[in-house]
């Protein structure tokens, strides 16, 4: 009886592109740069296509916001080891701060968003600080509470507009500004984070996930590193929140909604955890899908969760890893 097994081998072109030979011919360069160029160009050109279907403009804007959030979650969970189930907290903080700057302090849009992002990130890092020493499970549990706590506090104290929220937030000066701001920021962070996690400082942060005792024994304060990571992640999410506040011209309790916590997680799981790009791809799939599913009302959350669970259990490596494997390697059956 013949036994067959599957064998995976790197594609020839992949091997050729490792090292100096990567620039030896157009074909090799295209192999490496192709997917990235496709992504960048595709995303930059998208708004022009959207002129044809104006309804989708807002959806796509939201999609890019979600991809930022997913990026932040992927970074925190898979590179630092901090599973933050309450990303909506960061979003809400950014959104409310931006609204406050814009409406109460009368700052223009191009000031309120950056300021909200920076101050929001600082605020979030400080509030999450008590949770830093916690082990994975505890951290997840507690961060889950943060957005819930925020909503109840705002409701109970009736501050910041209470249940009505803050209205009268300025919108962007021009539609293209609205679209390209988020696209460019998203691209910057996507490639920036990729660079970052391979820098020395990024390696140290990743070391915290693998073996935090060893990092301590190397004379580095793990709490400081985690705070830095949370600052970066909340920076991204606060920007997203600030952007949304100006997109909808309103900042309300819905900024702390479950959606902002769950969809990034689902995007990361489906798109492939740990790849950063996967997070973005996942949201590119999920958000338009959720628009289609709007018809189903709250049932769409059931669908996300079911998909999420299915992916975790069955294909936990996610799409991106699967695609990367297909791109770089080929499989064949060999006789044992």
């Amino acid at each position, binding site marked *: 009886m013949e036994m067959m097994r599957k064998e995976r081998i790197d594609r020839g072109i992949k091997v050729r592109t490792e090292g100096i030979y990567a620039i030896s011919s157009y074909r090799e360069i295209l192999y490496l740069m192709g997917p990235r160029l496709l992504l960048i160009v595709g995303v930059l050109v998208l708004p022009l296509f959207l002129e044809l279907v104006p309804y989708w403009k807002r959806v796509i804007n939201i999609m890019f916001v979600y991809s930022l959030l997913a990026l932040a979650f992927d970074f925190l*969970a898979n590179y630092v080891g901090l*599973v933050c*189930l309450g990303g909506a907290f960061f979003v809400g903080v950014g959104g409310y701060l931006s609204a406050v700057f814009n409406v109460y302090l009368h700052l223009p849009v191009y000031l309120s968003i950056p300021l909200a992002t920076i101050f929001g990130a600082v605020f979030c890092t400080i509030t999450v600080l*008590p*949770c830093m*020493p*916690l*082990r*994975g*499970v*505890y951290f*997840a*549990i*507690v961060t*889950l*509470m943060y957005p*819930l*706590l925020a909503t*109840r*506090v705002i*409701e*109970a104290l009736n501050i910041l507009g209470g249940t009505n929220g803050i209205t009268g937030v300025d919108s962007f000066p021009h539609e293209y500004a609205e679209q390209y701001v988020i696209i460019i920021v998203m691209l910057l962070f996507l490639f920036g984070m990729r660079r970052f996690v391979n820098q020395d400082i990024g390696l140290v942060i990743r070391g915290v996930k693998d073996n935090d*005792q060893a990092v301590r024994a190397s004379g580095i304060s793990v709490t400081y590193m985690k705070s830095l990571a949370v600052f970066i992640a909340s920076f991204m999410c606060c920007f997203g929140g600030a952007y949304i506040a100006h997109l909808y011209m309103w900042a309300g309790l819905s900024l702390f909604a*479950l959606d902002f916590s*769950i969809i990034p*997680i*689902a995007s990361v*799981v489906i798109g492939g955890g740990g790849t950063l790009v996967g997070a973005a791809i996942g949201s590119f799939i999920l958000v338009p899908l959720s628009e289609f599913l709007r018809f*189903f*009302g*709250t*049932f769409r*959350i*059931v669908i*996300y*969760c*079911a998909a*999420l*669970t299915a992916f*975790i*259990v069955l294909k*936990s490596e996610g799409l991106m890893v699967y695609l990367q494997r297909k791109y770089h390697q080929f499989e064949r059956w060999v006789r044992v």
Partner: protein
Amino acid sequence: MEIIIYGVINSITLALISLGFTLVYSISRLPNFAHGALYITTGYITWLLVNKLEGFPFPFVIFISIAITCIIGASIYRFILIRIRGMEISEIIATYAIGLAILEGLRWGGLRGMTFTLPTFSSGTVNIFGTNIDHQRLIVVGIGICTFILLYLFTHFNKIGLALRGIAQDERAAMMLGIDSDTTAIISLAIGSGLAGLAAVVILPLGNIIVEAGYNVLIFAIAVCVIGGLGSWAGTILASFIIGFAQILTEVFLSSHYQMVVALLAIIVTLLIKPSGIFGKQKELEERV
């Protein structure tokens, strides 16, 4: 005096709600974020059975719905969690997603508005020390106390219960003695879900069945377990009393808006001061690597 009585009632209610969650975590190290969902599910099933199937005796209906919840809990483990056992992050996300799916699914399926109620076991009030208390609340307290006692006896004198405790204390050693960790996980999840169901059946008659209650139950259960120390029973009871009284006091002196805030703040405070909870045993031993 009223404060003390309501404090006790509230505390035992909290303890009853959290018992299922603590049990599953201390035995199988599984944070069952679907706990709140299972709670509401039992309530809904009971409502369905009571209203759609006339003529069945009430105790029978309760028994059936709790049993169904146990089966749901066990299936969650058997078909989903068993494949991701050991990967904490995935467990949390998966149970959270399942819980969310159940709750939102129920909401979509019609569980909206204030019209869903369960019948109380017995209506009428009783006067204790000058305060009027509903029978139902007394029943909650009674069942709560009975459940604790029964669970204590079960885990200390019954073979299966002892096996569960064995796994809770040292998984490897118990496995070496032939206790299968997956089977115990299924059993513990079944019992945990059943406890959630029991709590639902007894407590929901005091109000309505609403989906938000599912989230609230989850938050309370987590609060109690984190404060009491994940893995400790005495801690769970003590923590329920602390939170229970804190809530009643806030309700009396501030306003009832703050009930949830109290629970959430308590979690954060505990994590700042003593992360492993009051009686938690885990943190010290972590450092030993």
